[in-house]
Each structure stands twice: as structure tokens, then as C-alpha cells.
């Protein structure tokens, strides 16, 4: 009963947040609604005891992806009114497509109950059952091939992103940290002897730097 109440509460929040993503006037609010949606999805997953996925969802999407997303949205300062200009015009078509998609999804779940009734929570699992271990075991045995391929996909994404963004621009004067660290005291500082406070002593002419020499 308690689990059921939680389920419906989280589901309601999730739906509201999802609506907020598309209905907010401010893109930052949309992004924040998406964060809320991720959080509540994670909570729903916790209800069926898939703690690993739930926490990783928060860790990866909320903790990293959405931070960068917010970063971009805040920097770009999108003029949302212009983007939303065609909203009413296309609303009818959008509604039709949305209801079609919804009908299909319902149809699929109608035809094949996937064996989980999320509203009731998961059946109790044995005490020594570890969701993380179970997931790791199938990931590295049964699904090792797609898993490794997904890793290659990420590598390609990195290579592609770097290829398209990194280029040598002329006129840059970046620091060479290795050189900076390798500097010794003798390279920069010279001990000047025999100079009195005014810099006019006998040693001044001999040891002063060129610029100082000009000044004198």
C-alpha cells in the first residue's frame, strides 16, 4: 500500500516534470524540470529495487550530463519566444503524433505484459542479492559484445569531437608548463652585489639590467 502511494506520487511528479520540460517558457526551467524528471525516474526504479541503475541515472545524467546541458543553455541565452512561434500552428499535428505514439506503447504493453507490475514494487529479494553484482555479471558475459562496442562508440565520439573542435589557431601564446616548471633560479634572478639603495653605487653599472642601465 505504502509502495503504491509512493509509486503514484512519483509518477505524478514525473509526468508534471516531463510536461514542465516542454511547456516552460524559460529553457533553464525546462532543463531543471528534466533534472526533476530524472530524479523521480530514479525513485521509481528504486521502488522496483534496481538501485544500481537508479543511482547511476542520477550520477551520470543529473550529475554530469545535465550540468553541461545547463551550462550550454545558460550560456546561449536562447530566445525562446521565437522558437515557440509555430507552437500553436503545429499543435494539432503534434497532438495526433503524440496520441499515436502513446496508443502504440499502450498496445505493446497490452499485448505483452513484461512481467513487472511497477505499482506494487518488486517481490522481496534474498538478502544476499546484489543488484550491482547481477548487472555486472550479465554485462560482462552475455552482453559483453554490445558493451564493448558501446565503449568503441564513445571512443569514436571523443575522436570526432576533438577532430572537429581542436585546431591550431595562429596568434595563441599558451604556456608550456613543463618549461615553466623547469626554470631554475639562475635563469630569472641574479644576485646583485654592492648596490646601495639608490642604485648609484660602484656595482650599479656593471650588474644592472639593460633597462636599468639605460635609466642610469
Amino acid at each position, binding site marked *: 500500500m505504502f509502495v503504491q502511494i509512493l509509486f503514484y506520487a512519483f509518477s505524478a511528479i514525473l509526468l508534471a516534470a516531463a510536461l514542465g520540460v516542454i511547456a516552460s517558457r524559460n529553457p*533553464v526551467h525546462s532543463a*531543471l524540470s528534466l*533534472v526533476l524528471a530524472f530524479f523521480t525516474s530514479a525513485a521509481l526504479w528504486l521502488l522496483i529495487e534496481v*538501485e*544500481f541503475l537508479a*543511482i*547511476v541515472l*542520477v*550520477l551520470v545524467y*543529473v*550529475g*554530469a550530463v545535465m*550540468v*553541461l546541458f*545547463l*551550462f550550454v543553455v*545558460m*550560456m546561449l541565452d536562447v530566445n525562446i519566444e521565437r522558437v515557440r512561434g509555430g507552437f500553436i500552428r503545429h499543435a494539432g499535428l503534434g497532438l495526433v503524433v503524440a496520441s499515436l505514439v502513446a496508443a502504440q506503447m499502450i498496445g505493446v504493453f497490452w499485448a505483452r505484459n513484461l512481467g513487472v507490475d511497477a505499482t506494487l514494487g518488486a517481490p522481496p529479494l534474498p538478502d544476499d542479492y*546484489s*543488484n*550491482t553484482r547481477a548487472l555486472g555479471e550479465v554485462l560482462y558475459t552475455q552482453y559483453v559484445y554490445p558493451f564493448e562496442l558501446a565503449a568503441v562508440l564513445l571512443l569514436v565520439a571523443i575522436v570526432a569531437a576533438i577532430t572537429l573542435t581542436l585546431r591550431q589557431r595562429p596568434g595563441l601564446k599558451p604556456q608550456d*608548463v613543463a618549461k615553466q616548471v623547469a626554470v631554475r633560479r639562475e635563469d630569472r634572478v641574479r644576485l646583485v652585489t654592492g648596490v646601495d639603495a639608490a642604485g648609484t653605487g660602484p656595482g650599479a653599472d656593471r650588474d644592472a639590467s639593460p633597462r636599468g642601465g639605460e635609466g642610469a
Partner: protein
Amino acid sequence: MTAILDLWAALPDVVRSTAWILIVTVAVILSVAFTTLWERKVIGWMQLRKGPNRVGSIFGLLPGIFQPFADVIKLLLKEVVLPSAANKWLFRVAPAITLIPAFAAWAVMPLDPALVIADIDAGLLYVLSLTSVGVYGIILAGWATNSKYAFLGAMRSAAQIVAYEIAMGFALVGVVMAAGTLNLGDIVRAQEGGVSSWFFLWLFPLFVVYLIAGVAETNRAPFDVAEGESEIVAGFHVEYSGIAFALFFLAEYANMILISALTAVFFLGGWLSPFEGVLAADNALAQPGFHWLFLKLFFFLTCFMWYRATFPRYRYDQIMRLGWKVLIPVTLVWIAVAAVMVHFRVGPWSAN
């Protein structure tokens, strides 16, 4: 006394958990209060000053001991100024978003061999995800303030935290590989057997990376570009005053304590005694307990202050360089080394 213990044991789980949550929360808040005092004292000594010594004393000892309370009362009584162009709702909610993860992470912290509020399997991931959520408060505060300085601070913070989270996560991958579990209590138990079994010896590069990343994650000097008072005034909390500012302050120090405790748990055997195996097993000093965790935590906490007193602030691009080009490669290499050590049962893994 036994009557009280019996009563305690008879209480339902929910009540006991709630009580523990309250106790830990209050303890953290009090620790934060005295951490601020300790910080001012330590830095004072390092700079040949006395630090706060005016407010209160206990029978003439510990002058300045009540300074934190004076500060809190002052902040509570001040007006919270709400900038007129700010996004009011987010402006108010941001401090809370920063604060909640800093406290929530304590739920899985193994305080002593028997005591942990929530003993969950994926505890390490839980901690990692919560510390990563804390950045939202900073970003939102910076954005909602609607001021250039605040926004700059928020942007810096976002980029910095994402960068250092990767290094931090990789460092913890090494810990997970060494311990074979994600449960924080079990990670501590995996380090049983004296100082030589603690992970900081075997995962030393990861330990260093974690410590540095921890400093960066908490936005503390020398990684405090998000505040950067000499360039962007006070960064994301430039417009916060009174209790709203105090909440950010509280979150920062709570995070420091949290990172110190986590470092102790991951690398220094948490509650385990350093004399385990050296002294006889029935010696009081060889017994594990909360006091060891506290000592280790206190050490790292003091290190935080030491860094602040010692290092000048990093420039933004230097931070990025250090995070991406130094720390991450170091962790990647050492994860490979750790894998080899675990596989061939070198060092503390030779037993099992």
C-alpha cells in the same frame, strides 16, 4: 542505563533511524561551527596571528570558543536581500539544494563497526552521485542572481566540478577494484590487518588524486575560482546575505568534513585502528572505533586549512589542465596497475 538501552532497542526501526539521522545531522552542524573556528585559529597560527579570542571562554581556557555562535546569531539577524532582477524562486531554493546533498551523503557513512544509518550495497555510488548533485545549488545561485560576477562563478564551478568528478570517480574505481565491493562498510573491512593493508599505500596515486579532486569538488582554495573574491567579488554567492549566505557556508564546510571522512574511509581504513596487529589484540588502542575515524577525519580537515593558508589560487585554465591532463591520466594508469596487483594477489590481496 540498561533500561534506557532496552527502551531504545524496543523502539520501531523508523523511530531509531530518524533519531540517528537527527543525531548525525546535529553533530555535523556543530562540527561545521567549530570547524570555522578551528580554521581561523589554524590559519592565524600559520600567519603568526592569534585568531579569534574575544568571544567567551571556558574558565579562562580556550578563548574565543563561542565565536561560531556569535557569527551564527549575527547572520541570522541580518536581512536577506533579494535582488530585484533575480529569479526569486530559484534564488531562494539554491542554498537548500547545495546543503541537502552534503547532509544526505552521511546516510551511508560507516561511523563505527556497527553503526551506519543505511547499509546499502551501492553506497559508494550513492555518495558519488550526491556530491555531484551539490553543484546544482551553485549553478542555480549564480544564474538566478542575474549578475555577471555570480554567473561567471557558476560557470567556472560547473566546468570544474564536472572535470574533477571524472578524476574522483576513476580514483574510486581503483578503491572498488581493491575492495571488491561498493558498500562503504565492506570497503573499510577490506582494509583490516594493520596500516600496511590500508589502501593509501597500495593506491597512493589514487589517494593523492582523490584528495586533490576532493578539494576541487568542495570549491576550496586553491580551487576556489567559483568564489574568487579578488576577481569576481564572491562569485556565485555575491548577492546572498544573512542566513542564505550562511547556508552556502554551512554546505561548504559540511562538504569538507564529508570529503575528509570519505578519504579516511576509502584510503585510511575508516574506523580501523592503526595499531591493529602491532599491539596485542586485547589492547584498548588496537580496538576499532569511531574515535579513529574522527582522528583521521580531523587530520584531513586540518589539511584543507593548511592548503588554504599555503597555496595561491589556481587560474581557471590551470585548473582545467591539471584535471584533464594530469589527474585523469594518472588514475587511468594506476587503475591498470591496481588491476594487475589484484589479479596477481600482490600486497594485501595475497590473503584471499
